[in-house]
């Protein structure tokens, strides 16, 4: 194979990996939507559909991973291409976890249907789901377009979801203190809230990967801030 053809082949495969990631992300977002809908409408069929749909996401993860590993082994990419493939492997794992969280929410929905107690803090859960889904979509968009600024925006948005999770906790605590019969459904809803909060965390991971791809910088674990603090040299006094 001539170098030009090999190069084109490599870039065709990179493009395929990008497309697969986008498909996987779209499917993960759908599952989160469906899971939250099944919870809010107490719809057993939708909850079952989420549990079945997760299998498809698992298969997509394997496909993306195999493609990324073969690109690493056969093409020995460097620079931006290397950053893209390494991040893609992490992102497929994150998206697969999003599917797991959707399943957890659907399973909570099924248990809540059986409990017949209506105490759902609907506005907060809806808001969390909407924000987590938006973060996920924007994080993937930032990664595919190598947009570091958008990646950083996604990371910042995580704080609002964390705050909503705290709100849900306080609302449910009030219910539990007022009426012991709400303890079971409240714990179930707390799990739902926790799962949505984790989806936002996973979207944040993908936002961080977008920054790594675009700028070659690690921003996870507040690494950038730590480096900045370390680079401040104390000035002599007197």
């Amino acid at each position, binding site marked *: 194979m001539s170098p030009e053809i090999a*190069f084109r082949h*490599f870039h065709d495969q990179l493009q395929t990996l990008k497309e697969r990631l986008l498909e996987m992300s779209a499917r993960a977002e759908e599952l989160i939507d469906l899971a939250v809908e099944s919870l809010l409408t107490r719809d057993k069929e939708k909850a079952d559909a989420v*549990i079945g749909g*997760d*299998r498809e996401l*698992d298969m997509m993860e394997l496909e993306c991973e195999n493609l990324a590993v073969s690109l690493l082994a056969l093409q*020995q*990419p*460097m*620079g*931006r*291409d*290397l*950053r893209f493939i390494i991040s893609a492997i992490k992102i497929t794992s994150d998206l*697969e*976890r999003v*599917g*797991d*969280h959707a*399943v*957890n929410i659907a*399973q909570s929905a099924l248990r809540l249907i059986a409990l017949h107690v209506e105490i759902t803090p609907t506005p907060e859960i809806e808001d969390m789901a909407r924000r987590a889904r938006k973060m996920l979509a924007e994080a993937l968009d930032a990664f595919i377009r190598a947009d570091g600024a958008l990646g950083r925006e996604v990371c910042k948005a*995580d704080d609002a979801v*964390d*705050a909503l*999770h*705290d709100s849900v*906790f306080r609302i449910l605590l009030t219910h539990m203190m007022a009426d012991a019969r709400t303890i079971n459904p409240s714990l179930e809803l707390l*799990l739902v809230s*926790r*799962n949505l*909060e*984790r989806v936002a*965390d996973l979207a*944040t991971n993908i936002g961080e990967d977008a920054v790594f791809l675009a*700028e*070659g*910088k690690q921003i*996870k*674990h*507040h*690494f950038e801030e*730590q*480096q900045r603090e*370390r*680079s401040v040299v104390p000035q002599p006094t007197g």
Partner: protein
Amino acid sequence: MTGTAGTSGLGTRDSAPSDQRAAPQSRVPSPQSPVVGPPSAHHPGTISAREFSFWYGPKQALFDVTMTIPARAVTALIGPSGCGKSTFLRSINRLNALIPGARHTGAIELDGEDVYGAGMNPGSLRQRVGMVFQRWNPFPKSIYDNVAYGPRINGSASRSRIDEIVEQSLRRAALWDEVKDRLRQSALGLSGGQQQRLCIARALANEPEVLLLDEPASALDPIATQKIEELLYELRAELTIVIVTHNMQQAARVSDHTAFFYLGRLVEVNETGQLFTAPREEQTEAYITGRFG
């Protein structure tokens, strides 16, 4: 996998507190300075180029190259054909000065001494700065005589001392065990990889501070290449090594620092890990990802 997400804790991401996980110190140089690596002035073999430009007759091959090559480390020079990397390498031991019409401006210093200075004898410079070429070039002599050649002409007259140097150099070049029983046989009977390591042993026999290698493994098979690369890894503890290579994977494997040349200019010099994962310059990124060159 289904339904295994965590269910404990409130509203915070699972990251270690900052006081538990210390961030590693940055080793990335500032964009203003092309100098990389720890200060090594106390080790002999530090090379500094300052605004070094070079011409082959009317054609300018290097433009204002300024960089420091630290001692006791491997520095790889990469770039497309005609980018000036070999010219720069050969300028370090004044090999280019032998070409009619060649001239330069700026300076290259070895341990603070201008290699083009009036007081620098080219013979003793090339003793301090050894060189190995793409095509191995042993003398048509015995294995022993190839390695003993330098010490003999440098006046190490004692036979026992020369025996010692030959053994030591062949050991350092990881060739001793393969040739110790046939030292008096012709060097031309060795395999390509062995001949190349013999050339490295011949350079080491002069006890150089610097070893320059111009594509030393490009004509070798993968096993012989691996032996050369392992050898460079061993030698970097004692020598300044500068290697020109077209093979970016090789540069990534063997070097501590990498310098990227393009159209006669030094585009970027950086820690190798940094340069091949997240280079500073767009041109470097384009080259290492195969988008030009």
